[in-house]
């Protein structure tokens, strides 16, 4: 099948995964409404709807896979059909799917409205998929808002928990605040170039036909908006609070998928629309990357709440990913994709174990509560250790290969200072990741804790084992996926590569 975007039906085909996912969201919502008995949310409810959502994700995934086989003869100005989009779709689907898998007991135990939760989650995923695929700034804005509004609600989802509400409010107010910057940026860029289509903007800039101060201001505002979304220091202030307060499944979803989507969009906009202005934006991003690597890693050292610590860690990972944007070459882009995928798996996995330790609630999140957990549950302990090592970027895990990939990108652009910063802060991060490991394995269970038996359904265990397996597999045989990521990035590089060529010394 070939698409040339002459007819609108082609758009339907090109957006098949998004459409399928939207439809499943609706189905889940409706089924949830019908099965909803007031005041009573039996745990199995979560399971039914959860598996239903997973089925939707699987179907979307199949459609996404099918898109690989679809040829395009003409580019659409709205939707990219490149590998970058398809690869990032995998990312979002994986993030959402894993989150759903991990969240089922949590939702059941916390008696949350399962149908709404999952449909919001799926709809937010649809927003992400548009973020990854769009080549139009207005569509991008809509996609971001779709994702964000879903995320706001997911954060505030547990109405009985004031922390959840507080996190939701903070996220919402600050998110809307930053959206305004983003939107302003879009407006100014449009004003400067007369287009909201990324390739066209690039072309206009390349020709030198853009009105410069407006363009730069617009680009700056766009950058600010994205920096907020990807939680780059110093725009990260909301992240720890929101991640800590949100229900843990929502945290997992945000830390993995939302962050990934923001990065994908960030990269796509700056690489596709502003390659010619690389010299202008790269110093700023350089500083953002450096700060984002250093500060949260240091702050995470003194955290005692594991969820909050992982929040800071998530911010720090954003810093590593920003290095890829600074490097702005094909390797770096491929590294970014690879990193995001690994990061999604390991972060959701780690938070999955956190959920289990906290007994699918918002209690027992302090690091002391992990004392002796490893010996109580050797399998889960080992898996969490693997995830932590991977988050720390330790050899033998996917996280390491991902970091290597990013470093490769940095090296190709001769970003030695950033590479060294990355190396040093990685050591810093070892400390707090290992801290969890040492509580798990080297400390006894805290006295007087009546945690009771650990409850983790088989589905979660299987999911965690599979995730850990993936992490180890990617740590040892990353070649295939690296190649895939490279191919995906070359779709983007095809647009950017030439524009970038000769820009760097």
């Amino acid at each position: 099948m070939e698409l040339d975007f002459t007819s609108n039906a082609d758009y339907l085909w090109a957006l098949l995964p998004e459409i399928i996912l939207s439809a499943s969201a609706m189905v889940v919502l409706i089924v949830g409404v019908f099965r909803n008995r007031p005041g009573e949310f039996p745990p199995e409810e979560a399971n039914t709807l959860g598996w239903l959502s997973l089925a939707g994700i699987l179907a979307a995934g199949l459609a996404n896979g099918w898109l690989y086989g679809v040829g395009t003869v003409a580019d659409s100005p709205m939707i990219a059909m490149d590998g970058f989009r398809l690869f990032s779709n995998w990312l979002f689907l994986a993030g959402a799917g894993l989150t759903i898998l991990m969240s089922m007991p949590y939702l059941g135990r916390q008696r949350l409205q399962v149908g709404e939760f999952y449909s919001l989650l799926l709809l937010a995923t649809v927003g992400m998929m548009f973020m990854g695929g769009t080549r139009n700034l207005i569509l991008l804005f809509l996609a971001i808002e779709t994702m964000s509004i879903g995320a706001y609600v997911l954060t505030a989802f547990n109405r009985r928990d004031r922390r959840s509400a507080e996190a939701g409010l903070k996220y919402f107010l600050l998110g809307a605040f930053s959206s305004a910057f983003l939107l302003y940026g879009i407006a100014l860029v449009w004003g400067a170039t007369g287009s909201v289509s990324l390739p066209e903007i690039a072309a206009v800039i390349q020709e030198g036909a853009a009105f410069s101060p407006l363009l730069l201001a617009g680009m700056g505002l766009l950058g600010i908006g994205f920096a907020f979304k990807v939680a780059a220091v110093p725009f990260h202030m909301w992240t720890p609070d929101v991640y800590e307060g949100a229900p843990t499944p929502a945290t997992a979803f945000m830390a993995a998928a939302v962050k990934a989507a923001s990065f994908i969009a960030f990269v796509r906009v700056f690489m596709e629309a502003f390659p010619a202005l690389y010299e202008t934006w790269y110093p700023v991003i350089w500083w953002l990357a450096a700060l984002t690597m250093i500060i949260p890693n240091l702050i995470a050292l003194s955290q005692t709440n594991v969820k909050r610590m992982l929040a800071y860690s998530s911010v720090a990972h954003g810093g590593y990913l920003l290095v890829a944007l600074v490097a702005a070459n094909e390797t770096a882009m491929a590294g970014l994709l690879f990193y995001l995928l690994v990061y999604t798996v390991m972060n959701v996995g780690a938070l999955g174990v956190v959920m289990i330790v906290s007994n699918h609630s918002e209690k027992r999140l302090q690091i002391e509560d992990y004392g002796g957990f490893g010996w109580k549950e050797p399998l889960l302990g080992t898996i969490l250790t693997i995830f932590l090592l991977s988050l720390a970027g330790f050899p033998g895990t996917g996280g390491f290969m991902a970091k290597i990939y990013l470093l490769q990108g940095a090296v190709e652009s001769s970003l030695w200072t950033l590479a060294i910063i990355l190396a040093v802060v990685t050591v810093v991060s070892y400390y707090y990741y290992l801290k969890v490991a040492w509580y798990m394995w080297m400390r006894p269970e805290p006295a007087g804790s009546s945690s009771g038996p650990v409850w983790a359904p088989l589905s979660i265990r299987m999911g965690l084992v599979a995730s850990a397996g993936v992490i180890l597999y990617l740590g040892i045989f990353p070649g295939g996926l690296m190649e895939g990521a490279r191919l995906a990035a070359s779709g983007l590089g095809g647009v950017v590569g030439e524009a970038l060529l000769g820009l760097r010394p």
Partner: protein
Amino acid sequence: MTGFLDAVGFGEWILHALIWLPLVGIGAVLLAPEERAKEIAFGWTTGLFVLSLGLWWSFDPAGPLFQHMSSTEWIGAFGISYALGIDGISLFMILLTTFTMPIAILGAFKYVKERQRAFYALMLLLQTGIVGVFATMDLFLFYVFFELTLVPMYFIVGIWGGERRIYAAVKFFLYTALGSLLMLVGILYLYWQAQLNLGYPSFHFFDLLGTPLTLTEQLWLFVAFGLAFAIKVPLFPFHTWLPDAHVEAPTPGSVVLAAVLLKLGAYGFLRFVLPLFPEASAHPTVVMIMLTLGVIGIIYAAWVAAVQPDAKKLVAYTSVAHMGFVLIGIFALTTNGLQGGLIVMISHGISTGALFLILGMLYERRHTREIEEFGGIAKVAPLLATALVITAMASIGVPGTSGFVGEFLALLGTFERYPVLAFLAATGVIFAAYYMLPMVQKILFNPLDREENRAMKDLSGREIAVLSPLVGLMLLIGVFPGPILDRMEPGVQAIIEWVDEGAAGGALMEEAKGPAGVREAPPPAVPTTAELGTSAMDRIEATAELIHGSAAQREWIRVAIGDQD
């Protein structure tokens, strides 16, 4: 023997087997019932040791420099390959590892009482990492294995260690990781330069060899690599993690740490730093700094060791002193020095391993490591006393033991070039007696005036089995080090030649280039992989021609890779 080994294709699979079979052993250990785990682990590592003994015969001292080479593409995009190969130096490091492991495990039989399966599984994982480091020819793979050794050690110290085990484990982990991550950046830089030069990506040792680097680049890379290895060695003043780790680690952990893990650093210097950055390594200032730190380490650690109240800490500091000898041996860049350094490495592995085992045995009996708590032990435990005295003598380098051969050669080699430093380092011989003898006296001799000590048991059969091979080797290597020296010599010579030539060539290059630091663009006509041909031999041949065009260099490389291709 050689014929038989050839017949079974020993050389082709042995390195793979030694790296990966421990992982299989982990499965066996984890599946076994708790109380059988130690026996399985011991049997498994013993089997591996027996297997590795075949290397002694299969490695041909007169053959090419690197043997048992193999290479499989691992991550093609980055030119990372699963490349193995050993020379005489790595041969003995591997043998030391496979030899130490079963002994350490046997020594742990009574020490480790809880969570045995996990413990022995980690020990086996450690073995994979260490053997991997010594057997790999690919710099990236080397890094992976180098780091991989940290995790099991971290848990071994942290879970089965003493009071302050977590502090020690974390310090060990972070300190070592800091160095190695900076090395990683260095590796990538080198890789990038090599890629510019070669035209294709590769982390293979041979491909990286001879990468044209300015002196400034070499010095920076030297710092990046050197820091990692200096911390691992550990070189004064990066040593403070070691006493903590040693004191807190369980006996087998200390044994492996001292016997093998410290050698990773020295091995890194030998295998990578010297050949890859010859000009920096031979730079007078660098050499002076390294030697001075080595000498300070020897004397300073000896002094600090002498006043330690904790026996294990004392021995830990002696490790610093011994590794100082290794360092000066290496950086003297003479045949004798390098050979001596290597023998010190082996000897230190054996003797310090034995010391830790003996201290562990004392600890099992008395649950203390305070030297003052003992006294007159020789009266109640003559076998233990004999073992301790012989080991102590080997440790301080009394002739006839392995320690002497190593220290003598290392100092001799250093003296050839740096008499004054050798003079200072040789005072370490005096101070060795100054720290070791009082400890021996306070533990073994003096009145047997404590009731607890009167009831102390002598060595059991198992403990004799643990110590006797170590003691035997100390004496054997002290008397017949020849076969070891013979096998290591080609590797040592190769390193020296490479450094000498590289340093000379670098100077010429520098001169030709004019002002220092200005780097010419990489040679324009870099042949592509296709032009070069795919065989490693062709590639290396062409590379060498391209870089130096020196016939000797090419000859060296040819010898190095032998007729393997």
